[in-house]
């Protein structure tokens, strides 16, 4: 009985230990910073495109009227500042401010503040624009929410450049932080949930089982951006693509974690989302899903890759601020 109790205690302690390592091990900010640039650029572009039809989507006679939008959300806890703006002049003024915030967030200027503003504004726009949204907006909001948690402007940012200038050109290496790790882990887990339910929901449809689903996607004229219906001559290939899509989506949340299968999962993510971007007319959605997958690249990989940009040699980097013990630790994901 005693040994059973001991085994139970040790099992529980292993779980707590694993939980702590997964969520609380400090992590370098390089992955998060790259995500800030990519997701920030997507947020900026998404809001820039609203500018082209701003009054038609948010003005007094918009596609979904202000009152209708409020009514659609009645009884929910959604809120949008755009419900209280009627005048096209005020609408444009606040939209320009939003674009400036998104641009500042992308380049990493006052990133602590602009990351929070970018998240709040993105969600506020989404609540007002219900009816014209799709997967792009869901992933945009998800990335913005998690990027505000960690130090996403610690590197590759104007903030860093300004701090370095102020310090006379020499700055210690940015420290690894728990908040940075939390942000990355949340993006990773959220991506797993998206793919898990993407896979499960497809498994309920017979076309994904009989291998015709990809055909009906590529032959949908309203989605199509490049015509690849010549694939009709290769039904086996259409079926193969359908099956790979479901198996990859459903298994992503399990196979993305082991180092051995991670490159395969990420490679398939680029292929599937690249295909959606090129052939199904959803360039932005395809790209934002690829951006979400960047969360699975290790900070050291990104740091090394960024050294290829002609800025300064790696040897000129200042010594690390984090303790040697932290530098030696096993890097997460």
């Amino acid at each position, binding site marked *: 009985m005693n040994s059973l109790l001991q085994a139970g205690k040790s099992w529980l302690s292993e779980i707590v230990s694993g939980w702590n390592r997964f969520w609380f091990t400090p992590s370098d900010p390089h992955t998060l910073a790259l995500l800030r640039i990519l997701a920030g650029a997507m947020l900026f572009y998404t809001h820039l495109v609203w500018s082209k039809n701003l009054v038609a989507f948010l003005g007094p006679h918009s596609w979904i009227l202000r009152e209708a939008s409020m009514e*659609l959300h009645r009884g929910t806890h959604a809120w949008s500042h755009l419900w209280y703006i009627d005048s096209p002049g005020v609408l444009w003024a606040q939209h320009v401010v939003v674009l400036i915030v998104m641009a500042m967030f992308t380049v990493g200027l006052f990133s602590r503040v602009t990351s929070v503003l970018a998240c709040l504004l993105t969600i506020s726009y989404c609540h007002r624009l219900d009816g014209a949204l799709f997967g792009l907006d869901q992933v945009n909001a998800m990335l913005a929410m998690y990027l505000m948690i960690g130090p996403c402007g610690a590197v590759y940012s104007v903030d860093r450049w300004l701090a370095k200038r102020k310090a006379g050109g020499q700055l210690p290496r940015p420290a690894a932080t728990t908040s940075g790790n939390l942000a990355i882990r949340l993006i990773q887990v959220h991506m797993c949930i998206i793919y898990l339910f993407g896979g499960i929901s497809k498994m309920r449809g017979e076309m994904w089982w009989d291998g015709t689903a990809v055909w009906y996607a590529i032959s949908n004229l309203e989605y199509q951006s490049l015509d690849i219906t010549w694939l009709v001559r290769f039904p086996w290939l259409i079926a193969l693509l359908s099956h790979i899509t479901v198996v990859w989506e459903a298994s992503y949340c399990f196979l993305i974690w082991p180092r051995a299968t991670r490159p395969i999962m990420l490679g398939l993510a680029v292929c599937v989302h690249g295909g959606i971007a090129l052939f199904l007319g959803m360039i932005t959605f395809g790209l934002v899903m690829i951006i979400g997958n960047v969360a699975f690249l290790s900070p050291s990989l990104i740091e090394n890759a960024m050294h290829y940009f002609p800025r300064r040699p790696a040897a000129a980097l200042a010594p690390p601020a984090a303790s040697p013990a932290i530098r030696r630790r096993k890097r997460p994901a």
Partner: protein
Amino acid sequence: MIDREPSHPDVELPSKSWRVIISLLLIAHLVAIFMPPFMLQASGSGGTSPIGELVMNALLPYIDMAYLNHGYAFFAPNPGPSHLVRARIEFDDGRQPVEETFPDLDEQWPRLLYHRHFMLSEQLNAQYQPPQLPPEISQEPELAERWQTARRMYELKWRSFQEHLTAKHDASYVTLTRVEHRMIDVFEVGEQNKKLDAPDTFYDLREDGFVPPEELMGGNP
């Protein structure tokens, strides 16, 4: 404020009290992002999972506020037909009536803007409910209430579109028609050389609840 992980002493962790607080928040958040897509799947002819509803309702304020209420069912359960909206715009000042359809690749650029218009028509169609309470649910108060709410949402969007187009064209009346572009199968393209934009693949959808047989072929894109 710093602890060390016992099994990995070189890993520094936040203090225990911070870890407990953050862990509790994390668990609540993880459940909040899991529940909406779970609830989309956890439903059948017997209704939705009662335990799922309990958890979902408890977290709904946060889910709504943070814009997390998504099913992530892209092109699922099956890819389906597309839906467009055709508008007939009439004037009482002598101008000839005009017709326009959205989405329209020639009118809406860049592609993202086109997709926004495509979502307007798709989501209007997805919310369609027949104008009369279907007899098969008239005896079930819960289903009847759901129908009423869904129908009200549909009418709200419908009237919004009408009002938008009326103001845009300075028109006196706008009539909307939902149009379905049915899916074309491998045989039709491979053997019969049917074009994807063949006129006979477009159907006007009636507002009285009539469903063309082709709509039964698939789900939502």
